[in-house]
């Protein structure tokens, strides 16, 4: 990482964790906390989807893992009386393991066939949540307590959210931090050997196999990392809303996760983050247009994808493009 990008990261962290809360306090728009918390968490799930794109698979099933992660956390908190912060990684691990079993058969499929199966996955998960006794069916799980305190060796890392004056701010800060960590991990993966191997897989699976890459194993690994992101995003989301229903994450959410990636730019690690921000805020800003909201919104998405097929980040305002990226853009035209 060079000095320039290190500086950009530091500025970004300061903006997210300091400037945004200050601005919200000044403007008095406390509702923005919920919006931005949602953006942070949805962008984590989108990051997972982006990573499956990175091995050349269109994933429209992230909602399934967000829902599964949410239920794992909710059930563990309610029935096993576990601390939420412990259930957060467990939800991610549960989804990662689940995705290994789901991924092994379906990752053999490519293109639209894989996409179709993942699309159905979200619906299957919703129906499973409706049917299973542990999820309490359509009534869902409500009145989930706020996260408790975390302390290691007597030092309190995170306070009990019940004692906080402003849990909204706390949720925002925690979610934003989680987002920064997840994108840091994703960036590191993409720029390490694992990322290079994923790119080889994306560009030519046969050749990747012939240079000795265990492609079926690598596909499952990438998919489980992707699902891990979906699981922790779902779990954190449920902690914020304190309730979960089978309809908490639906097919529409899965589609949105995918759209976030398209809109931000598939060639850029931080594409899904920007895509989520633009899509989520765009929808909110159009609220005043009433019954035309969906019409304007969908027209704008169609236009954006037509005009910027490689995503918003391909405008080049945000980062200097390397030669390979430039080339990828030309190919996409």
């Amino acid at each position: 990482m060079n000095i320039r990008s290190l500086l950009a990261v530091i500025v970004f962290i300061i903006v997210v964790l300091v400037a945004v809360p200050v601005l919200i306090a000044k403007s008095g728009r406390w509702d923005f906390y919920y919006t931005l918390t949602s953006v942070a968490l949805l962008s984590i799930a989108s990051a997972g989807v982006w990573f499956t794109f990175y091995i050349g698979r269109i994933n429209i099933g992230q909602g399934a893992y967000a829902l599964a992660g949410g239920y794992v956390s909710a059930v563990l908190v309610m029935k096993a009386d576990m601390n939420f912060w412990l259930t957060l990684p467990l939800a991610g691990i549960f989804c990662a393991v689940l995705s290994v079993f789901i991924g092994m058969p379906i990752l053999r499929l490519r293109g639209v066939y894989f996409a179709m199966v993942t699309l159905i996955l979200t619906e299957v998960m919703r129906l499973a949540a409706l049917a299973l006794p542990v999820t309490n069916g359509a009534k869902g799980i409500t009145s989930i307590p706020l996260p408790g305190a975390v302390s290691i060796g007597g030092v309190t890392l995170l306070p009990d959210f019940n004692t906080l004056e402003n849990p909204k701010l706390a949720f925002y800060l925690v979610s934003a931090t989680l987002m920064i960590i997840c994108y840091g991990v994703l960036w590191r993966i993409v720029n390490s050997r694992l990322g290079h191997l994923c790119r080889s897989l994306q560009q030519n699976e046969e050749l990747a196999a012939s240079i000795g890459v265990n492609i079926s194993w690598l596909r499952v690994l990438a998919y489980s990392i992707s699902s891990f992101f979906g699981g922790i995003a779902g779990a954190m989301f449920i902690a914020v809303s304190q309730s979960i229903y089978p309809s908490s994450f639906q097919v529409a959410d899965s589609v949105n996760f995918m759209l976030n990636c398209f809109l931000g730019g598939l060639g850029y690690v931080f594409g899904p983050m920007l895509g989520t921000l633009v899509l989520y805020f765009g929808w909110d800003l159009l609220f005043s247009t009433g019954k035309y909201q969906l019409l304007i919104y969908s027209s704008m998405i169609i236009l954006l994808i037509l005009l910027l097929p490689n995503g918003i980040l391909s405008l080049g305002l945000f980062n200097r493009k390397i030669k390979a990226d430039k080339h990828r853009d030309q190919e996409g035209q």
Partner: protein
Amino acid sequence: MAALLSVQGVTKRYGGLIAVNNVSFDVAASEILSVIGPNGAGKSTLFKLISSFTQVTSGKVLLEGDRISNLTPHVVARKGVVRTFQEATIFRAMTVRDNIIVSHHLRSQASLLGFFLGSAKARADEAAFGDSADDIIEFLGLQGIANEVASNLPQGHLRALGMAIGLATGPKVLLLDEPFAGMNHDETMHMVNLVRRLRDDRGVTVLLVEHDMAAVMKISDRIVVINFGQKIAEGTPSAIQSNDQVIEAYLGSEDDVIGM
């Protein structure tokens, strides 16, 4: 002559069609052996069987006595038998150098987690792969285009890059699938030289499938001829050139001409 690679009674059946029928031959270490035959003779299928891209119906392929047939491609590559492809098969959106670096995967000492965390071992690997890639680039004369994106390259360079990718895995046996196809005389001679140096300088055993007779005669230590899935001849280039059965397979027999 101890065999490095040994093909033993290999048969491949697709339903009622027998693509490869009971073919056997040995490849000695540091040998250049060509498999030739008319179109549809089963040469490419044979290659797929040796590299485990397809499973044999019966028979087996051994590398230094170890069975390598009916495994998966990456396992066979790990054992040291690596194939290149007929068409220019490369990682299109990567630069030439990145194509070669990523193909060093098999030589990796550090784990993927090590690479993620940037361990000392991983950094040593990265440095070694970079050096080795530069070495291969120089060996194949690709210096001028090392930082070009692969999909921009002309055909001849793509073929050389395909070979570089194979070479980067550190193979014992390199399977080249029609390395001279679609090349003019000069390009072919350049490639013939490269393949020879692959063996002479790098000690790689080469097994190739090819149509270009002039190149095959020039480059091969020995030749195996197959027709309709069966081996019909095996020997040195000069022996093959005067073999009646081979001439018949390529030109048709006198009886056929009279019959028509």
